[in-house]
């Protein structure tokens, strides 16, 4: 079956919904489809806690936010993109305020801001410590106003249809019925978020399997800077539940097993009783996670059944501050760890959190495939470079969601319908999914969960916080072997009704694609920069690698890496200095 829309959005989280609203407002005559594998309010934006950065204070300036972002990115961010992002972020946050987002307030009624890691000024807007939840629900509820936005809830996109470098639409399967449908579109926007699930220990929800990245990669759009994987310094062991950076911004300390604030030994400043911006616990995430690894190596971490950890100390803040500013932290610790942060130390360890890399786009969200756009974590513009600053991702999905929406609407208004070759491709995809659904003959014998777990451990071992050429080469080989084993996967569920085994298989396929681009990109980048730390190339190499990596899928399926120079405008490459 075929349905026609002007713009199809893949993903209904923060970026997708912001884009949908932008299109509905800019071009009310366009028919927009939001296709999401979960109900939009289940999207992973919901889990973001700490806040959204946007310059608003009288003592702050756009240039300072730009500098913090660029130095935080270890100069790998494109400076034109960062300038544009920083300038538009406050407007987007205000717009969200007008739509009803319950931002936390000062006593006089103005929006309150809090400090955040790597930021020189207080500029992080917050809704207690459920900022992402409130943003997502505000966007979702606001989107219900627009009659031109048509939602496909719990539909999974299996393919982007591209003919001669121009997008034609998507093929998607409805989970509840198994119905496969071609949705033609003049423009498609990917807003599927990240891929944290390629690693075993992550803050990312179960749905973060890199689907959009894989779709784009297979459709001919390269993936940019995939070697840069952010580890958040404070996750709960076992569950990987995120303890927001706001916990440190409000005054929390990181202690090793001796009760010592160890970050002072890693060129991150001197310990002060109250938080100091761009210093100690408010340093950038990459440096904090790397310091953790050294503490473990020196034997100063705490042993837990789930590996080494350090302590997050919030006791001195008192129950009152914790309940007012970071109530969710207390709720999560009590409910999932049986620990009360107001009275006890909380065990934490670094945990995979965010992909700096993603589908290569320009500052309008456009990919090299004509009519294909991307925004949010799935995309790489890049404003995050080698390390994203905390609280930059929420405004990013607003700014670039809106930009991609407007650009796609303009493009779609002038584009023509699908080609015959495009429709034929879609028919082939229907047949492929039918085959997977009905069961292959003969069925494979590889258990999907085994493949997934082995892939995750390969990624942790080969492309963790510290990498070497050897570990990466090994990971490349293992992943290559997994590509073959994927075809041997066993699917026992042949039901058309909510077949989550088929879904798990399709997600595994996406993750294997994405994992491959991560290790290939990491292997080729022979330097250390931001979140990419090579023990065999421990220095930053601006001569060779002040450039974005672009992972292309060659016609034989192999991964090929090319490079694109970083855009520098006003901020020449310098040293990253924190706590001094």
């Amino acid at each position, binding site marked *: 079956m075929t349905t026609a829309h002007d713009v199809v959005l893949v993903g209904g989280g923060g970026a997708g919904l912001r884009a949908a609203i932008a299109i509905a407002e800019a071009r009310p005559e366009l028919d927009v489809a939001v296709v999401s594998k979960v109900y939009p309010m289940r999207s992973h934006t919901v889990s973001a806690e700490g806040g959204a950065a946007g310059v608003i204070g009288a003592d702050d300036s756009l240039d300072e936010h730009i500098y913090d972002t660029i130095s935080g990115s270890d100069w790998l961010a494109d400076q034109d993109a960062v300038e544009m992002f920083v300038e538009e972020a406050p407007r987007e946050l205000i717009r969200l305020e007008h739509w009803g987002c319950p931002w936390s307030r000062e006593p006089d009624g103005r929006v309150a801001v809090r400090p955040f890691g790597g930021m020189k000024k207080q500029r992080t807007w917050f809704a207690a410590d459920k900022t992402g939840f409130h943003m997502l629900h505000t966007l979702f509820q606001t989107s*219900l106003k627009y*009659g031109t*936005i*048509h*939602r496909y*809830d719990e539909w999974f996109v299996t393919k982007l249809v591209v003919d001669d470098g121009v997008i034609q639409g998507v093929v998607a399967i*409805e989970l*509840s*019925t198994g119905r496969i449908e071609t949705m033609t579109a003049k423009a498609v926007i990917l807003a599927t978020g990240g891929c944290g699930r390629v690693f075993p220990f992550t803050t990312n929800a179960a749905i973060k399997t890199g689907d959009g990245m894989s779709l784009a990669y297979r459709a001919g759009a390269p993936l940019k800077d995939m070697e840069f994987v952010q580890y958040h310094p404070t996750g709960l062991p076992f569950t990987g539940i995120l303890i927001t950076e706001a916990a440190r911004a409000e005054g929390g300390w990181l202690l090793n097993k001796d009760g010592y604030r160890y970050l002072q030994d890693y060129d991150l400043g001197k310990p002060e009783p109250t938080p100091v911006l761009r210093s100690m616990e408010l340093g950038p995430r990459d440096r904090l996670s790397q310091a953790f690894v050294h503490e473990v190596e020196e034997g100063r971490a705490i042993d837990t059944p789930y590996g080494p950890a350090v302590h997050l100390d919030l006791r001195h803040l008192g129950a009152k501050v914790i309940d007012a500013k970071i109530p969710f932290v207390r709720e999560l610790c009590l409910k999932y760890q049986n620990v009360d942060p107001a009275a006890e130390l909380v065990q934490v360890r670094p945990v995979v959190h965010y992909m700096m890399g993603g589908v290569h786009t320009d500052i309008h969200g456009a990919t090299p495939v004509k009519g294909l756009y991307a925004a949010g974590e799935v995309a790489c513009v890049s404003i995050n470079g080698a390390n994203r600053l905390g609280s930059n991702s929420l405004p990013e999905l607003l700014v670039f969601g809106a930009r991609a929406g407007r650009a796609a609407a303009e493009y779609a208004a002038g584009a023509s319908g699908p080609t015959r070759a495009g429709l034929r491709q879609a028919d082939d995809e229907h047949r492929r999914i039918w085959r997977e659904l009905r069961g292959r003959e003969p069925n494979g014998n590889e258990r999907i969960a085994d493949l997934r777990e082995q892939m995750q451990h390969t990624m942790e071992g080969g492309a963790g916080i510290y990498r070497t050429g050897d570990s990466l080469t090994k990971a490349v080989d293992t992943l290559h072997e997994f590509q073959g084993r994927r075809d041997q996967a066993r699917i026992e569920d042949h039901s058309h*009704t909510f077949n989550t085994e088929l879904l798990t298989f399709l997600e595994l396929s996406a993750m294997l694609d994405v994992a491959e681009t991560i290790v290939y990109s990491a292997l080729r980048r022979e330097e250390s920069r931001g979140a990419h730390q090579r023990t065999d190339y421990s220095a930053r190499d601006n001569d060779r690698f002040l450039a974005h990596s672009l992972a292309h899928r060659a016609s034989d399926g192999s991964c090929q890496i090319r490079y694109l120079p970083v855009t520098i405008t006003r901020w020449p490459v310098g040293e990253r200095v924190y706590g001094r």
Partner: protein
Amino acid sequence: MTGTGTGTGQRAYRPRMSLWWWARKRSYTLFILRELSSVFVAWFVLFTLLTVWSVARGEERYEQFLDFASNPLVVALNVLALAFLLFHTVTWFNLTPKAMPVKVRGRRVPSTVVIAAQWLGFVVVSAFVVWLVVS
């Protein structure tokens, strides 16, 4: 925004609630009892009206009414009705702070205070009635 229905309407299994659903859980049972209490509230109203009516019709009628009221069955019914009325009162008091959040100088008054204030009022009024009857 419009949503595409999940399209499973005809194939999904639609569970039916059993007639005894309210016996499954204590809170459901209490709820049904509270609903039932309205019957007794109605009875109380009727009884009070009967009292007033018979008083107005003169002493003879009133005597007849007193005979009727002292019938063991009627006494038993009234004791039961009183129990239900008290039950109704308690749940009503507990509900008030939910339906009517009271604010004093911009701060929400804790619900326990609101409930306590109602009980205080209840005790004062009851004491007054007792004083009226006794003296």
